[in-house]
């Protein structure tokens, strides 16, 4: 297990940021999801050792989060959400500097800095002062400093924030490449569900400091409910109420497509029986692939 936490709790004064969170993360890229104030950043900060948990235990790559923080920080790479650079430095010096602080010999750090800057696409501007970098270049630079010491686990906090669409695609490709081919595990915290869906096989969803859902995306999509998209002819109000009475969650889009979230184990024939009971005609019936957005709405309880 790369990360294992048990009953993790933390509070900022009277505000409880994490409340008894427990999960185990295995291999590959994992998405950390949740609305604002859900506790994502607090969780990352506890895993990095910036904050000490009020209660609970945990390990990162087998190292205890309370007692072996130095070993954890040596083994992980962290790409923070905020812009962070050192004024008056160029990218090579900056990247090598943090490699050295991670425990690399000076010459090795410098050599490696060139390699990772090539990898993240900053080869042309690696001698430019960081003060002159654009938002996209700063994101890449943060990625370079996180990768310079060849970490086993990478924490990425909102890696595509403040990027234009093209920059976002490029950074996602980079993360995808690291996560899929380089034997580096990635924990990706993001508000952008599409990013997580593109890159991650598993997710941890936090809500109000508690664990709302955790596991492989495929399993979460299928185990808890099935999603059907239905179009009917006739007055659909009674039809929808009938389905809701059967414990289905029903949503209707602007173009009158009805999304039916059916609890696990329920027979799909119930939709046709409800239609028959309420006198509507089913014109379209498709079993839909649930999106992360649907899952998120389902577990967090927001539309």
């Amino acid at each position, binding site marked *: 297990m790369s990360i294992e936490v048990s009953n993790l709790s933390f509070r900022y004064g009277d505000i409880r940021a994490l409340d008894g969170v427990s999960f185990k993360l295995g291999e590959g890229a994992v998405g950390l999801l949740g609305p604002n104030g859900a506790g994502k950043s607090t969780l990352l900060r506890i895993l990095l050792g910036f904050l000490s948990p009020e209660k609970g235990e945990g390990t990162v790559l087998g190292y205890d989060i309370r007692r072996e923080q130095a070993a954890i*920080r040596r083994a992980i790479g962290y790409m923070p959400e905020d812009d962070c*650079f*050192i*004024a008056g430095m160029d990218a090579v010096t900056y990247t090598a500097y*943090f490699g050295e602080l991670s425990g690399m*010999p000076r010459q090795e750090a410098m050599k490696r800095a060139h390699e990772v800057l090539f990898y993240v696409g900053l080869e042309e501007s690696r001698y430019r002062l960081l003060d002159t970098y654009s938002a996209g270049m700063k994101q890449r630079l943060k990625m370079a*400093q996180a990768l310079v010491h060849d970490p086993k686990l990478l924490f990425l906090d909102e890696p595509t924030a403040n990027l234009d669409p093209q920059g976002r695609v490029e950074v996602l490709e980079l993360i995808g490449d690291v996560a899929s081919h380089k034997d580096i595990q990635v924990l990706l915290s993001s508000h952008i569900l599409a990013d997580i869906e593109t890159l991650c096989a598993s997710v941890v969803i936090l809500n109000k400091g508690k664990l709302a859902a955790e596991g492989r995306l495929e399993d979460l999509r299928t185990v808890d409910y099935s999603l059907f998209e239905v179009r009917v002819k006739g007055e659909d109000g009674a039809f929808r109420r009938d389905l809701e009475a059967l414990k289905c969650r029903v949503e209707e889009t602007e173009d009158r497509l009805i999304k039916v979230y059916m609890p696990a184990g329920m027979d799909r024939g119930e939709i046709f029986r409800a239609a028959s009971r309420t006198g509507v005609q089913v014109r379209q019936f498709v079993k839909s692939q649930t999106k992360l957005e649907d899952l998120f709405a389902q577990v967090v309880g927001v539309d």
Partner: protein
Amino acid sequence: MATIREKGYYHWDGRLEARRFPWWPITRTGIQLAFKKKWFKFVFAAGFAPAVVTLVLIYISERLEDFKSMFGGKGQLITVNPKFFMDFLTNGGLVFIIVMVLVFAGAGLIADDLKHNSLQVYFARPLRKNDYLLGKMAVIFFFVLLLTLVPAIVLYIFKLIFAGSFRFVVDYPWLLLSVAGFSAVLTVFFAFYTLLLSALSKNSRYVMIIVFTVYLFSQILYGIINSIRGLHGPGTALVSIYENLLQVAAFLFGQKPPHAVHPGWSFLILAAVCVASAVVLNRKIRGVEVIR
């Protein structure tokens, strides 16, 4: 022959080691960045002027026969003794240049990291708060000691060379300790003083002004209080950073203090600034800004 690699990610085949001095890269980088600043090299070079003048004075004192005509045939005009070394280290010009060096090399040490959110990247490394602070302090140690302790020792050696005997060592066997002790007081005080002010703002230009102004204002305040009838007294010197340093220097060099106040008070005031700085630094320096 080295392998020609394609552009792409490669694992690093080295081994990460726990450093014996994890603060050293911070210090080295801080020193390099200081020399990249526009006016710093000139200010720093000017810091050696008092040492050069003092060296000339030592030479003249030992070759007085050659220079008698310059001084109208007077006998012992310059005496090289502990007071001479104390005067070199407490020279107003030298202390002023040290403050200017701190303005250029020290003001941004923490302020820039706060402004550019760099602390979280530092502390995502196997680095403790003490390592970070020691790394930053050592930048100031480097510059201040290079302008005080190093020239003082060089002057001491030249005094022996010019004199051609070890009589000076025999006469003042404790002098080097006094030099080292006062240089240490000066260095530690200015390190805490600068980092305290640097940690209080995210704007390094603002910190530059404050570092300079607080030092100068304390001296001006002393002058004002001293000139007001009724407030005038030896204790008024305690409001001035420079006068407190003079008091401490007099104690360490075994000289009569310039003000009729026990030098222990000056030690206490300088130590209080250091303690206040340590408290502020402990609160401000953390990997994450926690807003409660």
